[in-house]
């Protein structure tokens, strides 16, 4: 891998050198390297359009890295990755995609990730998206995440897209069984004339299932964002969705939360707030000696931390 590719890998997966544990690194549309462990197997899907990550029941404390990088301008790809997480596991999965585009053609990664979280398993899923390079070609990513959480399962999803992605359409669909929990923290920043759309649909099917979907975003320059979040309460359940956005310059932000109760004991809340940085926040930081631009940076960085 060249320096740019190594740099991308560090940005999206904190990987320097060869990671320990199980990993699968995909670079420019092909497998770059892979490692499996006793408990975690990674193999090509039989139809050849992606990989399967199979984690044995009761696996605890292990981490899997599955980063994707693209440095070849004009490369577009669509991959299907399946994660099968056994009962009682407690694992962390770090995925992410970095595109470095110096050319003039579009580079695009569309990933469809399906999670099957076993009974009483705990999964932390971290996904980071970054674009770099000063070529005119677009850097686009369209991740779809399909989540099924079995009884008593817990999944925490942390997604971050901080810069450099021209266009993204992020779709997350989740279905929860009895006593299952889903927690989502999304962090998003768009600048220049970028577009980002994020669309969550959560079905709380099981008794006492719960979901908390929280998105924080900053829209700068002429960028636009659309936040859609649907929670359907189909049983005794708790659902909460929150979109909190800072708007700057000439950006556009829409937030469309939707909650539907199909059961008398479904308890659902939505919150959405969009606004510019409060003047008093800037003033406070300026009284500490920061200039207006520095104050703005601190507020934005803190908000997206």
């Amino acid at each position, binding site marked *: 891998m060249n320096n740019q590719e190594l740099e991308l890998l560090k940005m999206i997966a904190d990987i320097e050198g060869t990671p320990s544990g199980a990993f699968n690194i995909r670079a420019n549309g092909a497998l770059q390297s892979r490692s499996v462990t006793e408990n975690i197997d990674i193999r090509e899907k039989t139809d050849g359009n992606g990989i399967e990550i199979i984690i044995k029941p009761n696996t605890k404390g292990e981490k899997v890295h599955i980063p994707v990088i693209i440095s070849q301008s004009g490369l577009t790809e669509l991959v299907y990755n399946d994660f099968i997480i056994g009962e009682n596991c407690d694992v962390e999965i770090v995925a992410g995609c970095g595109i470095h585009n110096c050319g003039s053609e579009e580079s695009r990664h569309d990933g469809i990730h399906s999670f099957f979280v076993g009974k009483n398993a705990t999964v932390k899923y971290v996904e980071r998206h970054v674009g770099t390079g000063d070529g005119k070609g677009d850097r686009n990513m369209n991740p779809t995440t399909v989540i099924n959480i079995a009884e008593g399962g817990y999944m925490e999803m942390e997604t971050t897209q901080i810069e450099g992605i021209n266009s993204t359409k992020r779709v997350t669909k989740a279905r929860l069984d009895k006593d299952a929990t889903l927690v989502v923290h999304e962090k998003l920043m768009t600048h220049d004339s970028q577009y980002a759309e994020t669309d969550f649909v959560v079905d709380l099917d099981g008794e006492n299932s719960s979901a908390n979907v929280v998105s*924080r975003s900053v829209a700068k320059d002429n960028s636009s964002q659309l936040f859609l979040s649907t929670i359907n309460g189909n049983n005794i359940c708790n659902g909460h969705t929150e979109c*909190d956005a800072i708007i700057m310059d000439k950006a556009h932000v829409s937030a469309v939360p939707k909650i539907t109760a199909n059961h008398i004991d479904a308890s659902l809340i939505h919150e959405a707030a969009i606004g510019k940085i*409060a003047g*008093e*926040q800037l*003033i*406070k*930081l*300026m*009284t*500490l*000696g*920061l*200039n*207006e631009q520095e104050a703005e940076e*601190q*507020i934005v*960085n*803190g*908000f*997206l*931390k």
Partner: protein
Amino acid sequence: MLELKNVSFSAENDNGQKQILKDINLKIDEGFVVITGPNGGGKSTLAKIIAGIITPQSGQILLDGKDITNLSITERAKLGISFAFQQPVRFKGITVHDLISLASGKAISVADACAYLSQVGLCARDYINREVNASLSGGELKRIEIATVLARGTCVSLFDEPEAGIDLWSFNNLIKVFEKMHDTLGGSIIIISHQERILNIADKVIVVANGTVSQEGKREEILPYLLGKADIACKVLTANCEE
């Protein structure tokens, strides 16, 4: 030394222009200065004018002889003016440690940040990584606000009603914090307050009422008069109640 010369400020309200400060002239030397006076008298406006948050329509502000009237908030902060807000600002995502680091102007260690928090009566370990957001109570925010001014350690420290919202137990410690600042930091510590116990530790007391400086002088001179007046006011109220 901080000097205000002929400072006037008026703001627009529903009935047109309202004069908030009229021709204020003040000299504030090093030491402990308490600005007091009735609500709505113009004290907070005066503090904001010193910090550069509000620009007066006329007059001059001098810091150690240098005219700072046209300097921005940032420039004044860099010259050594600190300001603790009456109502501290909340920030989503910025932690107490971040804020104290920003205040001190450098990345400071957790231990150093904790030292400032301990001084204002907060158990540092519980707070250092918390966000300065709505999860903190008003009293906690006030103390963190004071800690940011301690961390700056500048030649002029302005506090707008620091005691408001702070419980009695912490109030005792707060007095100690100001006394310690007085001893170690030097410079001018200017506190807007109505509290007798804060007035009691002042070197100088300034009374601002109806937009003007109605009285100004050493604590020994001003305080008996102020307290006497309060006594008379109380007696009038009691008499009314008894009727």
